[in-house]
């Protein structure tokens, strides 16, 4: 573990005017990251550049891999070696990582993946921001699984949520996605880094039994299973195949498969309450609400300011954590509302999840924009007044 003194020296002044991508690197380091592997891609390259500049000074390795498949594989390996590991990428690389994300879910390897979303599909508009990977984040890898995904809306949140992502990954033994975008990633704002000697790092639970009775894939009551690092004498069979509590393949046993996958899903889904992170800006008597996340939350906040200055009544719910989806928080928010508007930089993704959550108790409308420009507050105000596109 890096000493706070060294960390403080390497990170420099706590007050900075920093770029979002670089802030993700600061957050990672403050989250105890000790391994980074990646492959450069616009607009995420600055994360890797900052890690390459900072990590060696802390004595931690940074590897440039041959591609994104290898990057996430290296991260999962580092995780099993006891590391707090991260990679960062954008759309095309995120697509390549999907199998690895499933492998990390199945093998319960804590790790952090930053996706600085850019305009797709395919290579699309490399330098332009988008929020087009949100449902890929949820369902991009095959098979039943759960994911934790956070959506920073500011440079400060790139620090705070990347740091948090490490603790959540460790606590739940699951990959955690930091779903930023090219706008937040390349934006510069003032930030204040938390003090390195006040950090509370959550770590995976170490084994409490002798190696012979160690069960790295057994549900630990309310918590994720214990996890020993390679090289500590706890021999572990790590496989993406359906496995028993020891980790040994058990592919023709329906009960074993069901128990395993239900546990992988349940360890997150059953803790949705604890994983819910939302920010509310409520107005009495508002019958129109906005549910936003990431960069579009900034446009939404601007829209709320303009709308209220015109005498309109509107409430705003920002999803800081998008998955597991904070269904109850959304349901509470829309109580008594006629309409809820979801602004996002895509042609309709989270709006569908919102519609599913509200189950007809309010009409769900979307304000979408693709092509690279972030949504203008006036577009959302217009939807508040005249209605957006019905989902």
């Amino acid at each position, binding site marked *: 573990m890096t000493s706070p003194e060294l960390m403080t020296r390497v990170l420099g002044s706590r007050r900075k005017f920093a770029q979002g991508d670089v802030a993700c690197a600061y957050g990672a380091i403050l989250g105890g990251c000790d391994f980074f592997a990646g492959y450069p891609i616009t607009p995420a390259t600055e994360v890797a550049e900052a890690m390459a500049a900072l990590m060696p000074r802390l004595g931690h390795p940074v590897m440039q891999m041959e591609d994104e498949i290898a990057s996430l594989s290296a991260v999962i390996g580092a995780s099993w070696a006891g590391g707090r590991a991260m990679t960062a990428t954008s759309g095309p690389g995120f697509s390549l990582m999907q199998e690895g994300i499933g492998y990390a879910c199945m093998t319960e390897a804590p790790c952090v993946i930053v996706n600085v979303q850019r305009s797709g599909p395919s290579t699309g508009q490399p330098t*332009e921001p988008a929020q087009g990977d949100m449902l890929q984040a949820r369902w991009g890898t095959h098979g039943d699984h759960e994911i934790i995904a956070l959506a920073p809306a500011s440079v400060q949140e790139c620090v705070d949520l990347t740091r948090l992502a490490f603790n959540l990954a460790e606590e739940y033994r699951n990959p955690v996605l930091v779903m930023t975008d090219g706008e937040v990633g*390349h934006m*510069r704002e003032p930030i204040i880094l938390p003090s390195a000697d006040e950090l509370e790092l959550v770590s995976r639970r170490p084994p409490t039994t002798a190696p012979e009775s160690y069960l790295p894939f057994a549900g630990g009551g309310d918590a994720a299973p214990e996890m020993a690092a390679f090289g500590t004498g706890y021999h572990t069979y790590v496989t993406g195949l359906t496995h028993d509590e020891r980790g040994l393949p058990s592919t023709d046993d329906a009960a074993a498969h069901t128990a395993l996958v239900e546990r992988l899903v349940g360890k997150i889904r059953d803790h949705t309450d604890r994983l819910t992170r939302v920010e509310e800006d409520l107005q009495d008597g508002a019958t129109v609400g906005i549910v936003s996340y990431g960069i579009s939350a*900034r446009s939404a906040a601007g829209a709320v300011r303009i709308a209220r200055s015109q005498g309109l009544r509107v409430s705003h719910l920002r999803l800081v954590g998008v998955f597991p989806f904070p269904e109850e928080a959304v349901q509470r928010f829309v109580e008594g509302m006629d309409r809820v508007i979801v602004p996002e930089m895509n042609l309709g993704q989270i709006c569908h999840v919102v519609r599913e959550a509200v189950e007809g108790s309010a009409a769900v409308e979307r304000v979408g924009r693709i092509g690279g420009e*972030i949504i203008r*507050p006036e577009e959302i105000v217009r939807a508040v007044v005249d209605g957006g596109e019905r989902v």
Partner: protein
Amino acid sequence: MKKEIRICGFGGQGIVLAGVILGEAASRAGFEAVQTQSYGPESRGGAARSEVVVSTEPIDYPRVSRADVLIALSQASYDSYVGEMAKDGTVVIDGDLVQAEGAAAVPFTTTAEKVGRKIVANMVMLGYLAALLDLVPQDVLEGTVMDNIPTGTEELNRRALQAGRELFGGGSHDES
């Protein structure tokens, strides 16, 4: 108080760096500030844009909606953005690169050549822009510039900044 500043032109003109320095200097001077950028996949020659919003209030929407100041360093960028000005907004062009009626034409590029190197035209422009905005104390701006440039170029950049200030007629803007 809220000022929205848009600087635009080609990739390679140092537009992003000028915006970064202005945003950082404003932040150091105690304002809320956000800098955003937009550019094409080319490292040079494509359209580039750097925006800075400076405010005494927290900034939600980070982009420029209606520019209080537009600095256009290419004809194409002038043509694209001149229609998105705030009422009473100021349009500044590099007179060596852009033809426009009713804009303040300032010779950033030729001044930079006189100062020493064409490459510091962005710093000439920044000196001019900072004087025009009159928000950030000169020593704060200069300190921020010094922290964002390669070592060995301090004197050249300092002269460029000063030349820009003088283009605005900034002799009277000296720090007291």
